[in-house]
């Protein structure tokens, strides 16, 4: 069977806790179900289980931090693209200035 099938099988083990549990319960049956060769099934039976769990945890953390970053980057990009219409901008600016001027305006000379 092809190397791509083995990679796909490993990818599923890395991201899916249920797939890992099923595989751990019966490695040969699960790898045969995935269509892997006899040689590949035998190799997977000797898998480094501790390494698999640690790698899966590490990949999960990476995916989580990427999701956070992606969300933040999307928000930042959206905010940076926001453009207020000019009249709104000026209106806001002028009304603030008027307000300030009113507050700080000196009394006219008598």
């Amino acid at each position: 069977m092809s190397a791509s099938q083995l990679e796909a099988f490993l990818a599923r083990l890395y991201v899916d806790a249920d797939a890992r549990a099923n595989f751990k319960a019966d490695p040969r049956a699960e790898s045969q179900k995935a269509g892997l060769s006899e040689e590949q099934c035998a190799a997977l039976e000797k898998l480094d289980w501790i390494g698999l769990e640690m790698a899966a945890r590490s990949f999960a953390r990476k995916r989580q931090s990427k999701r956070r970053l992606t969300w933040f980057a999307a928000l930042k990009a959206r905010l940076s693209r926001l453009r207020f219409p000019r009249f709104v901008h000026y209106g806001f600016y002028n009304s603030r200035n008027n307000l300030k001027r009113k507050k700080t305006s000196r009394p006219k000379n008598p």
Partner: protein
Amino acid sequence: MNYLTDRVGLGWRPDLAVGILEHLDGIDLLEVIADDFFSAPHRQIRALKTLAAQIPVVLHGVSLGLASSVPVETKRLDQMARLFDQIRPEFWSEHLAFVRAGGIEIGHLAAPPRSSASVDAAASNLHRAQAAVGAKPLVENIATLIDPPASTLSESDWIAGILSSSDCSLLLDLHNVLANGLNHGYNPIEFVRKIPPERITAIHIAGGKFVSAPDGTQRLLDDHFHDVPDPVFDLLEETAARAPSPLTVILERDGDYPSMDSLLAQIVQARCALAKGRARRAQTVEVLA
């Protein structure tokens, strides 16, 4: 630096931007994560071009998956090609890893089973990448917490096979060598000695932490959140003593950022290790002559 043009630089990260720009005289070059700019707005590309005009810049990819058994998607190669054209870096690099398979995104770099089939697949992807981008990538060895199952080749033989079939140079990540050596029971110095020295042109140095395994043992995680440990500097000295080409060393730091002074001190320490290695190499060359 005292050997040809060995250089030591730093990985560009937005959190370090101010410190880097204030200390450009102490940094020989910057490595930029290419994927961060694939869909960046024009003004960010302009800013990157401005940066590249001030200091040599190299691009580093993290998501192509060049060691995958299936061909890399054209769309991803095109993104790298476009950025390469815009920035004109000194070189670009990617990892010998697969990051997706069967429609599943793993989210990080995974080690493929090491076999002659995966050597051929990686070489084919590297040829496609070269054709798309217009320049050969440097390829980087990765750290892995699990020794890839169904492997028939040692890591050093697998890497040497890919370098030979693709005619690419190696970006040797020394912390990854240290981590894999400790986690999978081989001597990191011996590993460096097995890599064809003429292929090594760039180096990554970084730090990681030990994490506890469920069986009570510990494994070294390459998280780039810690200072570069001494064994990595020892490996750098060993590499400099063997590699005939000028070396470009990049210090990688991805979080828990220390002061800029601390990062600059690690750059200086890398220069010292390079100088020591080059002195050893000069002595060996003299003896052989």
